[in-house]
């Protein structure tokens, strides 16, 4: 059987370039907000450094998201904040990132604006934690809701938050925070287990497509995280490898998963 078309079916990848980069950066942004919130709630001495980092990653991610939109100069961008669409994962992601950013900003501004000192830090830390967790979870949910795209199956709900934590803890290790090491080892071990399990959950043409288009990057990402797991005596090298593996994995899953389910 052969196929031809008159007119063009819209089968080109729709999330490319900056939009795919967002799926990587939102992990760093949300994960860093969670980390900064925990450090804030525990009054940890590293707190300020991670608050700045969380703010930086959130702003960078939001900028990338805005720059990647073809409607970037339209007023419609404001509708993200003027709408109430709780069924939409992106709506949750927007508010998760925004509330985390607002909390970060208010805590950091406390040093210079005495009026803000009245706001309890525990409250801001809790809001940041919730916002960060939402941002951490949202990319996986945004992919899974597309039932017609079988590569994005339920495993995304676990892979995206775990790889986000892997990236964030790797950054913490690169910055020399010794407390991150134990958690990074755990995140890397869980990631390796997920990488082994995930292909087994794919079926039929989705599995064939995944193996054909994504296996090289997937296997490389898996090897990088596995090597990181072995090399944890050299924290910076292990962190670098873990970070690279998680970035590659998230990028690849967003790109390769855009295949439509067979059936048309």
């Amino acid at each position, binding site marked *: 059987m052969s196929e031809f078309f008159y007119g063009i*079916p*819209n089968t080109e990848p*729709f*999330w490319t370039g900056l939009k795919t980069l967002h799926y990587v950066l939102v992990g760093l942004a949300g994960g860093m907000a969670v980390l900064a919130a925990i450090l804030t709630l525990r009054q940890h001495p590293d707190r300020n450094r991670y608050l700045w980092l969380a703010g930086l990653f959130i702003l960078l991610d939001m900028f990338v998201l805005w720059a990647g*939109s073809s409607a970037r100069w339209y007023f419609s961008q404001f509708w993200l904040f003027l709408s109430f669409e709780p069924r*939409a994962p*992106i709506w949750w992601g927007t508010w998760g990132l925004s509330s985390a950013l607002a909390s970060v900003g208010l805590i950091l501004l406390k040093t210079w604006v005495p009026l803000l000192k009245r706001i309890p830090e525990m409250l801001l830390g809790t809001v940041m934690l919730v916002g960060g967790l939402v941002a951490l979870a949202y990319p996986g949910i945004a992919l899974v809701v597309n*039932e*017609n795209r079988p590569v994005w199956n339920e495993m995304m709900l676990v892979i995206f938050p775990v790889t986000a934590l892997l990236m964030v803890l790797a950054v913490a290790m690169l910055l020399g925070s010794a407390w991150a090491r134990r958690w990074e080892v755990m995140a890397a071990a869980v990631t390796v287990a997920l990488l082994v399990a995930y292909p087994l959950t794919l079926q039929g043409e989705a599995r064939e497509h995944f193996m054909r288009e994504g296996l090289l990057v997937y296997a490389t990402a898996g090897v990088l995280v596995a090597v990181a797991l072995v090399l944890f005596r050299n924290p910076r090298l292990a962190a670098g490898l873990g970070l690279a593996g998680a970035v590659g994995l998230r990028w690849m899953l967003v790109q390769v998963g855009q295949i439509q389910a067979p*059936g048309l």
Partner: protein
Amino acid sequence: MARLAMLIDLKACVGCAACSVACKMENEVPVGGSRLWIREREMGTFPNLTVEYRPEQCAHCENPPCVPVCPTGATYQNEEGLVLVDYHKCIACSACVAACPYDARFISKAGYVEKCTFCAHRLARNEEPACVTTCPTYARVFGDLDDPDSDINKAIQAAGQGHVLRPELGLKPKVIYVNPPSKQGLTRKEAQL
């Protein structure tokens, strides 16, 4: 409330693409994207050959997966069941493009999402969609599924059975095919109209 739908008789469709051209003209669809296209399939081996021409477009599903994922409410379903886009609210996030199982949506050069509207602007003037009025073989019938006397219901009854694309997803699409030479994509379950 009406349930507007489009019936396409695949036995009558000759793949001339007049509907596709009419759609482009009527809606000023830019080069690089299509609201409506024809899938041509050659099947079998000589001397038992069949060709199927299947026009495809937004199916204006009764349970549209593109509506709940829109973070700004730009994609919505109106009272007549048409799935439309409010361009002023669209942020071109492509969440709806990802959710559509028919590849019916694309980001236009103007920066927002485009798709078939069943020519809602023409319906407002009591005119049929451009693809329907243009079809030289009368392969397309447009009407209200809730009206038992409508042309579309009569056409479905005459054909005996209507099929929809990817019925297994449970979206209740409202582009209905009759007399399909091949049943690829149509046969996983009986169509629920």
